[in-house]
């Protein structure tokens, strides 16, 4: 059997292999080394949760701690990308986009278009997303719909270690700016991951489970919730096809539409808040392009339209659960016109 490593190790390995392969790859972010300017061990942290640990020892100055100045260093990553480097920049939590968003959507994303096709901006912004850590309203959000909305950005949201490695390597080699979203709850999830380097192309969704009765589109951590729900449902005789988007931009419309053409029913599961989200995006796509195949309303299972609560009791209710997916699927299955 193939080697099993965690999601977090898969990311570390992707970074390691790409840094070894191409010396233009550099890493920057807060405490990505950890310990700059201190008396203790350098590489003390390797990122706030240890994801970049060990890289400083191998690559030295190519991995750089930054001041807490997200506009400054994200912008520097963007500028460096136009000048011959391939920076992988860490925005610790996606929640912090509010202090540096301009450098991403007005600068990186638009250079190529504004400059008449002459710019290439191969920058990757790695960032943590999602609830489940009791980290409260400003450290638990799923803000990737905002990035998905921006022309010129690519947005990646892996659900498992295998995809994490292959998609991150692809992201680093890609010549467009990429937002790479790591769900913090997934870091400890294990999976089979080849040691060799490999890429997974963007815009190719994964059929995480085949099924006939209903399509469940999910992404990131929600793929696991959807698979659990599908398991439960299968014992009740409902066969779910679970589609893991992998990337929301570019979007694999074909796989989604084909699946719905076969099943005639759709539930979209997204941990983000409900308005103007991936859930509405996929629903709208299907209501437009596969309407004639639809046999029932499209259900969306999302977080409520509220900030993320701190209390564990509330946070557990906030996050879409396998149970809520089961209910949604059943209600769609029960529909008859």
């Amino acid at each position, binding site marked *: 059997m193939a080697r099993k490593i965690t999601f977090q190790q898969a990311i570390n390995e992707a970074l390691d292999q790409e840094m070894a392969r191409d010396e233009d790859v550099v890493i920057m972010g*807060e*405490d990505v080394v*950890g*310990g*700059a*300017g*201190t*008396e*203790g*061990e350098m590489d*003390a*942290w390797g990122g*706030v949760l240890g994801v970049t640990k060990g890289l400083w020892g191998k690559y030295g100055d190519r991995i750089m*701690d*930054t*001041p*807490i*100045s*997200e*506009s*400054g260093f994200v912008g520097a990553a963007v500028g460096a990308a136009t000048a011959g480097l391939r920076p992988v920049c860490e925005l610790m939590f996606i*929640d*912090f986009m*509010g*202090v540096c968003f301009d450098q991403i959507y007005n600068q990186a994303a638009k250079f190529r278009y504004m400059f008449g096709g002459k710019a290439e901006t191969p920058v990757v912004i790695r960032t943590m997303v999602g609830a489940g*850590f*009791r*980290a*409260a*309203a*400003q*450290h638990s959000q799923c803000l990737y719909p905002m990035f998905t909305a921006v022309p010129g950005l690519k947005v990646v949201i892996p659900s498992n270690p295998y995809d994490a490695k292959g998609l991150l390597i692809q992201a680093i080699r890609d010549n467009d700016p990429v937002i790479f979203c790591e769900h913090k709850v997934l870091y400890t999830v294990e999976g089979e991951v080849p040691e060799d380097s490999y890429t997974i192309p963007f815009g190719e969704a994964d059929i995480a489970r085949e099924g006939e009765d209903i399509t469940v589109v999910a992404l990131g951590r929600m793929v696991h919730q959807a698979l659990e729900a599908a398991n439960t449902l299968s014992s009740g005789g409902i066969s779910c096809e679970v589609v893991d988007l992998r990337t929301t931009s570019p979007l694999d419309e074909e796989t989604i539409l084909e699946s719905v053409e076969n099943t005639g029913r759709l539930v979209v599961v997204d941990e983000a808040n409900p308005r103007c989200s991936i859930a509405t995006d996929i629903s709208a796509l299907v209501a437009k392009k596969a309407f004639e195949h639809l046999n029932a309303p499209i259900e969306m299972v999302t977080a*409520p*339209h*509220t*900030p993320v*609560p*701190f*209390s*564990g*009791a*509330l946070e557990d*209710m*906030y996050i879409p659960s396998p149970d809520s997916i089961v209910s949604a699927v059943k209600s769609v299955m029960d529909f008859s016109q």
Partner: protein
Amino acid sequence: MPDALTVEDLLDAYRTMKTIREFEDRVHVEFAKGGIPGFVHLYAGEEASATGVGMHLSKEDKLASNHRGHGHCIAKGVEVKGMMAEIYGKATGTCKGKGGSMHIADLDTGMMGANGIVGGGPPLACGAALAAKMKKNGKIAVVFCGDGASNQGTTFEAMNLASVWKLPVVFVFENNGYGEATGSSYSVSCGDIADRAKGFGMPGRIADGHDFFEVYEAFGEASERARKGEGPSLLEHKLDRFYGHFEGDNQNYRAEGEVQKLREETCCIKRFAATAVSEHGINQSQLEAIDSEVGELIDEAVKFAESSPDPSESDLTTDVYINY
């Protein structure tokens, strides 16, 4: 100045510092036991800073805090039981358990909120100061920032804005030498944070943040300036944190024995007690009485928090807007 401090004041100050220390030490213990969830940043070691500032503030003055906010809350008069319950995520918490350690706020006591965003507070404090200025009520605002936060663009903008609008606000930088695992000697490109004041047209001053009396005096000057309508000031408190960046931090970026040494040599509470007894006629027994009262208070707070109920399902979707 120390002279202006009555015995009453000094005992108050001691009580505040001690309450903060006990609170944080206890949260540390309970966190390790698994009773407390989330990201928790402790203030132990920095008590003289919040306390020396807080002694100059009334409930109508506003305070904007950061992720390391427990001490600021206590010094601003937020009730300790509610805070503890909040940190436990309980319905009886200051914020009904919806905010947690990083978001304790109590607008009634002028506590505008801890903040999970580094540099989130300075602009907000400017706003509170603007309100005071417009209402001509003689009130002021203060914001606490770390050395790490001193490099955030929002912080710089706020300092400039405060100066342009001549706002009654004081920027207090608590320089504890680290922003997470990164040294301030690395991240702050000038020698002292106080060196930045000139670029924003305001006075900048350094105080020994282990020394309550120095902090009290320096902030007294800055707050007086603000109250008189003479504009903002910058203060840099040099101090140390006794725990890790957050609970769970192995602190391997610190020199060996560093924390041990700090606890012995730089403890602001020990230092305060010694001075209070030797120079201000306070009795050791008075301090001991406070120690035991504080101990009880914290015990009670933990019991209260532990025995309080979780928020209920309906709390999930309320308090988003005024009408739900």
